């Protein structure tokens, strides 16, 4: 191996791949049954964390950053004056295996700039995955990018080797896409996504009948949207996201605060702050939608188009729906408990278990680990002490903000001082 050459390529092609947020390595069921290398049947593992706090689970690289497209938001766009490089198929295979054997990574996340044609690019990505599976007996995690515009046959083949496939929709609205990526068509993104979804359903049905049916993208599909590049509302973003979860059985939708990388006048200027707080609120909303039984229309709608930056979306929702509270901790349905600000999934389960044995009071709840400082205004329990003052929602919100620590206090204060 020529280490110096590989080092330079790695530098360029990892740098270009880092704006892809997904680094998940969970959800696959690929076992090491052939005494080969690797196992991805368990939970995902983050083997390291970057200084910006993101998990490093996969070797995330581009096969090449040569690209025939010129999307304004992308670092590898054709018109950008940067160093270009390309890995050989075997180089990616060797690097993945050497890193995996040392327990640096859970597997490979391979994306690419589009060179020559979408099909040509997709074919190369598949070659890497196929080599890893067939020649190296590799059962680690493989995440391949579906190249927009790739043919159905190639997408079918990709899913046979990959654990996860993803197409980044990037721009949540059609008008935004037209503005920033005029060479790309909305349909080009949707077509591979639909093909993969259909194949997953078909393979699942078959494997019910025939046990030996090969696995097809067992960890499903994901996609990503850039936040804050085109002036879209939180409602626009989350409604698209809900659409993908529902109609394309997405495993995950990622939200990526736009990192300014271009002087293009259509985009936020270089030096503009990355909207990290907004990104965080969007993820919270995503979780409420997927795990807490909220319908997205409850959280965002025509009269409420932007998330409250000062408080989390669940608290914000609860403050708009005071008539549903207080809930009796010892009686309320699990589904309702999940809606109380300051009580999460795990605490809910613990409460439901523990209240079978005795009535719970504030001490019990404190020990179980719920955020009493938020929850206490929305619940009653086995105690005479009640924290229900007759405050308006706005007053209550201020009380809660004052009595709680937000990791975003610094980001919030300059915004607040504007008013």
């Amino acid at each position, binding site marked *: 191996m020529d*280490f110096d050459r590989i080092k330079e390529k790695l530098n360029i092609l990892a740098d270009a791949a880092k704006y892809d947020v997904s680094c998940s390595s969970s959800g696959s069921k690929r076992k*090491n049954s052939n005494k080969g290398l690797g*196992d991805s049947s368990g939970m995902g*593992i983050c083997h*390291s964390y970057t200084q910006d706090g*993101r998990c490093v689970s996969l070797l995330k690289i581009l096969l090449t950053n040569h690209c025939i497209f010129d999307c304004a938001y992308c670092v590898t766009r054709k018109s950008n004056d940067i160093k270009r490089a390309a890995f050989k198929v075997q180089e990616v295979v060797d690097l993945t295996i050497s890193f995996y054997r040392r327990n640096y990574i859970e597997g490979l996340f391979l994306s690419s700039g589009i060179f020559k044609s979408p099909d040509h690019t997709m074919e190369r990505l598949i070659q890497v995955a196929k080599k890893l599976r067939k020649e190296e007996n590799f059962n680690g995690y493989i995440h391949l990018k579906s190249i927009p515009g790739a043919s159905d046959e190639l997408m079918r083949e990709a899913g046979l080797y990959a654990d996860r496939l993803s197409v980044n929709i990037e721009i949540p609205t059609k008008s935004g896409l037209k503005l920033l990526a005029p060479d790309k068509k909305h349909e080009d993104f949707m077509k591979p996504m639909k093909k993969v979804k259909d194949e997953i359903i078909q393979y699942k049905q078959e494997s019910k009948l025939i046990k030996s049916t090969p696995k097809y993208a067992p960890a499903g599909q994901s996609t990503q949207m850039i936040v804050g590049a085109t002036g879209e509302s939180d409602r626009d973003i989350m409604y698209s996201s809900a659409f993908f979860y529902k109609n394309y059985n997405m495993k995950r939708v990622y939200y990526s605060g736009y990192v300014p990388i271009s002087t293009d006048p259509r985009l936020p200027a270089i030096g503009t702050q990355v909207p990290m707080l907004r990104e965080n609120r969007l993820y919270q909303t995503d979780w409420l939608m997927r795990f807490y039984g909220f319908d997205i229309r409850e959280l965002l709608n025509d009269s409420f188009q932007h998330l409250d930056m000062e408080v989390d979306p669940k608290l914000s929702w609860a403050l708009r729906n005071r008539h549903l509270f207080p809930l009796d901790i010892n009686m309320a349905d699990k589904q309702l408990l999940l809606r109380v600000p300051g009580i999460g999934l795990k605490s809910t389960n613990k409460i439901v278990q523990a209240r079978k044995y*005795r009535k719970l009071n504030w001490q019990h709840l404190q020990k179980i680990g719920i955020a009493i400082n938020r929850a206490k205004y929305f619940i009653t329990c086995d105690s005479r002490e009640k924290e229900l003052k007759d405050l308006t929602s706005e007053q209550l919100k201020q009380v809660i903000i004052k009595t709680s620590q937000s990791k975003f206090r610094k980001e919030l204060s300059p915004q607040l001082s504007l008013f």
Partner: protein
Amino acid sequence: MQDAVLKYDGSFKGFLTCIFDAYEQKLNIVEIVPAGEDQGQLFSDTHQIISDELKALRVLKGLKAKVSSTGMTRIKWAFLSEAPGIEMKLYEMIRYIFSNKQKVDTDYSHSAVLYISNIAKQVGREKHRMEAFVRFRLTKDDIYFAIIEPDFNVLPIIIKHFKSRYADQKWLIYDIKRRIGAYYDLTKTEYVSMELPEDIGISGGNLEYFDPGEIYFQKLWKEYFDSTNIKSRVNMRLHVQHVPKRYWKYLSEKSPFA
């Protein structure tokens, strides 16, 4: 009834034997002390407990009938925490379990149950961290070798993970704090104890011990790690929350040599 202090060899088998003897002899136990540690109680009978497989298995069987499988895992993991006084907390929980007709291992309003659940969670976290942060280095004799120094005694519970993952390579994970390692020879794993040279280090590729290519892969990994960082998003607080500083020593990408 006289207060009793039980001394045992520090193994899980020994601990379960303590429980058996406590019930059989109706002892009023005030302290259970592992070998190598001093007892705190002065005015009480001291019993030296000898680990007994049959007794331990009977307690285990009794427990299995009264707790869920998660509950059983929690008891084992909490024991591996080696936390001072963990034996008494476990004893308290086990007594609560045996004194009830129903399963009570999910009664989080009982202080010992909640305590064991929390400490088992800590052990689980350490287990997961070791599975994540262990870094193998390829030695000259073709063994992937890693050193760990975990807060809790998690080596026994990480073996399975590494065995199913690295079935086609020889590996050795050595706990330098407890001076015991697990070695996989392509068919089975066994515990080994050995003297390590002082200059072997947790990372780096000293050519006396390691494959000549080893150091380059560490350098490539560091290169990757550095290129994947997004400077405009740096958040060291979050970073340290994910990788507390005491784990940095494992991570070659964070060491300054390259």
